[in-house]
């Protein structure tokens, strides 16, 4: 679980890599699921990056410190 304002990205995408014991490794079928305010959000994955869902777009200032996101 992380602070909702901890991440932002300038181009609308977040690059994701996978590693085993710190060494980059290939991973088929990587999936990311986010949960915000009880709502499940599955970002669209394209190659090694996923599109930032609309719910997370906008300036970091719109989040307060107590908001949290579960990453599943």
């Amino acid at each position: 679980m992380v602070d909702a304002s901890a991440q932002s990205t300038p181009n609308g995408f977040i690059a994701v890599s996978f590693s085993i014991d710190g060494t980059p490794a290939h991973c088929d079928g990587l999936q990311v699921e986010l949960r915000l305010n009880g709502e499940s959000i599955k970002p669209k994955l394209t190659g090694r990056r996923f599109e930032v869902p609309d719910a997370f777009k906008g300036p970091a200032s719109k989040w307060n410190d107590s908001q949290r996101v579960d990453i599943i």
Partner: protein
Amino acid sequence: MREGDWQLGIAQPLYALKEYGYTHQFDHGAWLGYLIFEGEPAVVTFSSQPDPPAELFDALRKDQPNASPGRGRDIAYVLAVFDVEYQKNRDLLLLSLKSCLSKPKESSEDDVCDGDLLSFVTNLYWRGDSALLAPLLQIAESRRDVIDDIGTFYADLLDRRGVIVLSAMGELSDDKQHLVCKLADADDLSINPPNRDRIIAFLRGASGAAATQCLRAFGSS
């Protein structure tokens, strides 16, 4: 990696403990899942993962008999985490720890007697091996070459298992009780005022020689 990137991964027990140090999330499970958010500051989150791959057991068990002392120690820890021949492997680790502490301080460095060894044994305690508490309290001393930051473990014990640790400390001499708490303060609580205040409040409400010795060690008697 650029700022904003995510790094997902899994860590075997050895890598998890050596790379990330102690995390509560590794008090159970066989693997540690991690998610690193690159940035300033970077954010790292962990989750415990069950079920290690079975083929790893066999490879480690085959390696163990002919491994160097250091590698043998590491394998014993991993196998203990995987619950493979648990008693044998945890005994090996505990024996190594006692053996390291019995060596003269000026002994040459080796790949067994370092801070990782203590991390392995304390991790097995947090994983549920309650019988390790007594020997972990008995080894309280200022051997920084072997038990680098054992005070951090003692501080964690006082914070998370205060009643249990005070009871167990009843078996120690007054001097040793005092030392346990002195180390907890020096290694952790002195730079962690909220935890220190919480533990002192707990000790003031507790009774017994161990609580008294701890309060003295904290300068709060």
